[in-house]
């Protein structure tokens, strides 16, 4: 494998992984706080993308990036206050069901407001070009800022790959978000109250803190993070009604693999999955190739050849779920989880 392909696959994987992390962090936060697995989480991601699209049409992308998360966060908080809190006393199953129902309602409402087609949500003009170019010359590997340098066209056998600025921007936003959430949870008074409310809600309440309001804040904050992911993801990929479905399942795989409720686990799992998928797509190896390397030749007549010859790139999309199943079997609490099952 040549180095420039390796680098670009790694960067692509990291960017996908970080986007996934933005989404998973909110979900895992809400879960660790309230014990609620929020099925509508990816729907808030979609709403974030659509709200940002509408704001972009009126006053531009930067305002959208600033305004969409608090708006969607407020919607999430309202949902917690007037729906989730009411069913809380009936136990976890009704809570699960109400978020499940919400995801369908959001989908229909989004289609009513913005239509069933994809909307044209683009990154801002400033970030549309490439950030840098990986110049792979026959004898050396170099980097250049911005567009492809002249050497690309001038040298025979040069492979120049540009890396889009908006992808890098999305990665930056994700890292900043990780830092901010981590600092908030570990270094501030609010974070202390949240962490205490997580394990000892009665004690925190008797100290005079309004625990239900803390829950509302966490739910709102979690959905705001999902919306932030939506602003980046919507502009980077496609803003369409099926975008929630496309990431919803993977995000659950991420938090199960990482360990339910663990922010660090969510980070490792999402970045890991992003990178694994990126390299799997780029790989044309199959089980048959592996066996051939061991001296066991496979021919189309071999029993089950259709299965042995499936290329890794063809199964890339199911790798997260394969890992999910393996983790559940061998380490049910996840990589960094603290509670069993």
């Amino acid at each position, binding site marked *: 494998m040549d180095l420039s*392909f390796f680098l670009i696959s790694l960067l692509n994987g990291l960017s996908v992984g970080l986007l996934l992390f933005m989404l998973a962090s909110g979900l895992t936060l809400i879960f660790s706080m309230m014990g609620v697995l929020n099925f509508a989480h990816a729907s808030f991601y979609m709403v974030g993308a659509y709200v940002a699209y509408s704001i972009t049409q009126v006053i531009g992308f930067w305002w959208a990036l600033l305004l969409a998360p608090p708006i969607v966060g407020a919607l999430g908080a309202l949902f917690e206050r007037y729906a989730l809190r009411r069913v809380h006393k009936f136990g976890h199953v009704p809570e699960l069901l109400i978020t499940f129902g919400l995801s369908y309602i959001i989908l229909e409402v989004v289609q009513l407001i913005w239509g069933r*087609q*994809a909307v044209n949500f683009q990154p801002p003009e400033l970030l549309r070009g490439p950030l840098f170019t990986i110049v792979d010359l026959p004898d050396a590997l170099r980097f250049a800022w911005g567009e492809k340098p002249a050497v690309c066209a001038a040298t025979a056998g040069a492979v120049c790959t*540009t890396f889009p600025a908006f992808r890098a921007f999305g990665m930056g936003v994700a890292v900043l978000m990780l830092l901010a959430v981590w600092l908030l949870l570990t270094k501030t008074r609010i974070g202390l109250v949240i962490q205490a409310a997580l394990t000892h809600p009665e004690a925190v309440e008797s100290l005079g803190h309004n625990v239900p309001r803390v829950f509302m804040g966490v739910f709102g904050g979690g959905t705001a993070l999902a919306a932030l992911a939506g602003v980046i993801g919507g502009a980077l*990929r496609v803003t369409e009604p099926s975008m929630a479905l496309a990431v919803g399942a993977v995000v659950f795989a991420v938090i199960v693999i990482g360990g339910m409720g663990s922010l660090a686990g969510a980070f490792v799992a999402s970045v890991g999955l992003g990178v694994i998928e990126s390299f799997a797509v*780029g790989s044309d190896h199959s089980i048959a190739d592996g066996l051939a390397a061991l001296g066991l030749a496979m021919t189309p007549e071999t029993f089950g050849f259709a299965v042995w010859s499936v290329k890794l790139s063809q199964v890339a999309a199911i790798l997260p779920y394969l890992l999910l199943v393996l983790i559940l079997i061998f380490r049910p609490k996840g990589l960094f989880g603290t509670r069993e099952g």
Partner: protein
Amino acid sequence: MQISTRLHTISFACAWALAGGAAFGQAGQTVKIAFIDPLSGPFANVGQNQLKSWQFIAEEMNKKNPAGVKFEFVSFDNKGSPQESLTVLKAAMDQGIRYVTQGNGSGAAAAISDAVTKHNERNPGKEVLYLNYAAVDPELTNARCSYWHFRLDADTSMKMEALTSFMKDQPEVKKVYLINQNYAHGQQVSKYFKETIARKRPDVQIVGDDLHPIGQVKDFAPFVAKIKASGADSVVTGNWGQDLTLLVKAANDAGLTANLYTYYAGVSGTPTALAAGVGGKVRVVAYSHNSVPGVVQQLQTDFKKRFNDDWYTGATYNGLMMLSEGMAKAKSTDPVKVAAAMGGLKFKGFQGDVEMRKSDHQLQQGLYISEWRKADAKNPYSVENTGWNFQEVKAIPAYVASTPTSCQMKAP
């Protein structure tokens, strides 16, 4: 309750129309056609455009057509799935609709073709006729051919004959990368390209052959990285709709310079992505392009004025023209008589003379290789208001594009 009353009214109206037809011939009758295609989901933009295209051509034809009938479209959303297609097909049949059209997705096309054939065997007197305007899996007019299925687009075997007869004369084509959607259509594109290019240019190397899930991939960057690493000078893809739009975007983002050989670069959404920038040349093999002389010029301009959108589905014109000619010849709107009249029918399509081949119901027509270029005085049309359009680089006559069929047609 309301629905069933409405159904009754419709079926009553149809029964009346049919009874009337028997007495006075076909002129003046209204022919209802069920449009079954994705109107939601990742391919909604394509389906919506094509529904408008059919309705637009119907309005044009309703002013004047050889049979003197009125065409009316009833739309059904199949969400791109074969299963959903069958459900809505049943709904259309229950409404008494006798003509069905579908195009997006060879999987859905095969399901509809089979269902229509079975339905017609079991319900004599209620036969339904299926116009396939865009599903190009060759199987549909070969091993799985049906008397009730009529294909207006050129199938993949024809498109690949045409495309390779152009590519064989391009000396820069040395390493080709295939990337396609993992379902009937994409698999056939890959298979037929490999077969025909091996026959015409055995020196061409296939450096990659990827099949990805249809409508699921939202980030093509890893695929583009792979294409770059393979050193391909040309990419051949049958992708359509969002799957091509996102591929083009990712290719541009990563600075891919290989030439793109496509079927559907002119389909909704993709031209806008192309206009944002593309490294290599973009070529299309299709039955039409933006500068085909004749009715196309007027139609695409009128369509643009009305909808601010592009009329790229020429099969909508050929489809209604063929139906109308068939009805005039049969002197009836009964699908059984019309089907018999359309087998072997020669008529004037938007591009000139075409023939619905009797042996497999595959329209025999010339094809074009066109290239994405800036609009000029000779080719003024602006696709998706980009200031660019698809211009002819080679015309392939019908006899070159024609391929044999193994269809054993069973007439009722």
